[in-house]
């Protein structure tokens, strides 16, 4: 089959690799019909997530049709059309039973690296480095999915791939970020970053009752899309964000602030190593931690900072004094995708949100390397790329069809 393969920093290629097979009785094989490139794939592309290995198949946002199930799979049937949540739940541990599926105790086959870096291991993730299990991803024509009964979510009739694909990650991620803001009637929410997750965070904040949402980015097409959702916008290249936020909120500051930018994850390690490691990972060249610092500074006293952005290792110069003296709350986490699936599918079915509005590019899988490039550099107005693993690259329209 064809698959998108990580071949080192800034090198992805489309290669022929063996088809996946059932490896355990609870597995299912999915014929992928749609898959997407995610912002967190860029952290892998840029080499900021340790423990990627050349040849790893990328992709954690994918859906398709079940074509084979293991002998112990009961609920999922061949022919089912399913979306695949990116965190893998065993369904049996305390975390899974309490809806904290991205923290599953049992699904990471390689937990020791994670424990060394983070103290405890979260769930296994598809297509996302060996710290989280090294599971082959879904930017491929077929994918092996594990604990099929616990994870594969059957898509209701009448919804297109593009409407439900983002249930695998970015829609629930934006939604959980908004939920983490603890929104009350009348609240003003600020969102740093209007990429795909930010777009869903903005829309989810409104779904959850925010009075106003202020969205911050620098790319006009992203700010346009945010305005279409009803947000007011700030361009941080031309607006003094802190002062403007203060002014727009009558001097109070936003009640909650989301960091939907994320830090380029960097290789962790015991504190004494931080400097050496930072140099080798080029983290000092990244300006992305600014969003997190800015979120803490901008948030009103007693407010909430919600962090859906990806952070991997150690960060410094966090304004802890502001955090403590303003009595802020911070909420974080990889998304517990499973717990949001029914709720968000309902929003889509009732027409309260159309997730496909963020798609700017539809590409064949052969064009994935191009997709990574335009997404990374925000060329061609790229906000979100969806890949069709089965399209003939010849007759596929490579330009955005937004």
């Amino acid at each position, binding site marked *: *089959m064809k*698959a998108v*393969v990580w*071949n*080192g*920093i800034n090198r992805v*290629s489309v*290669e022929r*690799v*063996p*088809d*996946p*097979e059932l*490896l*355990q*009785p609870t597995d299912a094989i999915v014929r992928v019909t749609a898959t997407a490139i995610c912002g967190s794939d860029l952290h892998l592309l840029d*080499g900021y997530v*340790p*423990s*990627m*290995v*050349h*040849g*790893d*198949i990328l992709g954690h946002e994918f859906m398709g049709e079940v074509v084979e199930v293991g002998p112990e799979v009961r609920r999922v049937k061949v022919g089912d059309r399913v979306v695949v949540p990116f965190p*893998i739940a*065993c*369904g*049996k*541990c*305390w975390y899974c*039973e309490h809806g904290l599926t991205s923290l599953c*105790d*049992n*699904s*990471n*086959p*390689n*937990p*020791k*690296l994670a424990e060394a870096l983070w103290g405890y291991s979260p769930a*296994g993730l598809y297509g996302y480095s*060996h710290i989280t*299990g*090294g*599971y*082959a991803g879904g930017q*491929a024509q077929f994918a*092996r999915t*594990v*604990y099929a009964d616990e994870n594969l979510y059957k898509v209701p009739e009448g919804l297109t791939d593009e409407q439900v694909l983002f249930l695998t990650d970015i829609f629930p991620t934006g939604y959980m970020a908004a939920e983490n803001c603890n929104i009350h009637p009348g609240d003003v929410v600020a969102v740093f970053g209007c990429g795909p997750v930010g777009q869903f965070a903005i829309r989810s904040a409104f779904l959850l009752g925010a009075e106003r949402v202020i969205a911050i980015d620098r790319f006009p097409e992203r700010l346009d899309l945010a305005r279409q959702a009803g947000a007011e916008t700030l361009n941080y290249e031309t607006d003094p964000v802190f002062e403007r936020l203060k002014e727009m909120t009558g001097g109070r500051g936003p009640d909650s602030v989301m960091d939907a930018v994320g830090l380029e994850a960097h*290789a962790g*390690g*015991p504190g*004494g*190593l931080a400097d*050496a*490691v930072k140099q*080798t*990972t080029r983290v000092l060249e990244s300006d992305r931690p600014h969003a997190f610092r800015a979120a803490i500074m901008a948030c009103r006293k007693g407010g909430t900072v919600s962090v859906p952005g990806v952070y991997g290792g150690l960060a410094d110069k966090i304004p802890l004094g502001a955090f403590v003296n303003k009595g802020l709350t911070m909420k974080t986490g990889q998304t517990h995708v499973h717990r949001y699936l029914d709720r968000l599918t309902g929003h889509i079915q009732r027409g309260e949100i159309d997730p496909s509005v963020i798609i700017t590019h539809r590409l064949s899988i052969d064009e994935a390397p191009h997709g990574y490039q335009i997404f990374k550099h925000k060329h061609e107005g790229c906000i979100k790329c969806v890949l069709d693993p089965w399209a003939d690259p010849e007759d596929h329209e490579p330009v955005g069809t937004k």
Partner: protein
Amino acid sequence: MTTQTEQVSPQNSSPAERLLFGGLGVGLILLSLRQGGQSGILLGTGGALLISGAALGRSVGSAVTRVQRTEDDNIIVQRAVTIGKPVDEIYTFWRNFENLPHFMSHLESVRVQDGDGRRSHWVAKAPLGTSVEWDAEITEDEPGRRIAWRSLEGATVPNEGHVDFRPAPGNRGTELHVSITYRPPGGTLGAVVARILGEEPGEQVGDDLRRLKRRLEVGQEPTTEGQPSGRKGAMKAEAKMYDNRRTT
């Protein structure tokens, strides 16, 4: 086991040991700078760990292997895990020592030798494809609370251990607290060598308990072995380094 042997005393390293490991650390960092990329980061991290250990004067051997020692210089391993199953189920599973090799990867077999299962014969895998055998007896057996055992006279690696079963608060299942004490051949050096061979005891017991948890909670270990990839040549070995490191 008596309680006073459970006390752990910190070990200080000898100057020679510090020099050796410090030198090794510098070497690794130099190598990491030449290597660059992801493997470079790993090497550099390892090197810096070794240097910091040497600088702090903590027993680098012990720090690297995380070996803890009792006051009478036995090696002690203490690990705990919470398993989302009732105490009785886990106690019953453990009490049949013949189940232990199902999750203790270094054990080849345990054969119960008498009617009440108090005496047993253990065969363990040792480094370099050899095996070690010994007889053991149960010294304490409180159903649903505690099992303790001890190797009998003549064991190559004399050892004893106990596991306590405690109901975890808030319906979280059962806490298992495992403690195993033994004297490996060759003291700290032996432990360092064992660690290099992937047989370090503390990590091994930790892995074993995780395997037990996964067996009892899910019925199987997750795996990625056999999945497709675009790996070529040497990269297979590098992936192996990160992937399921099992001692089976």
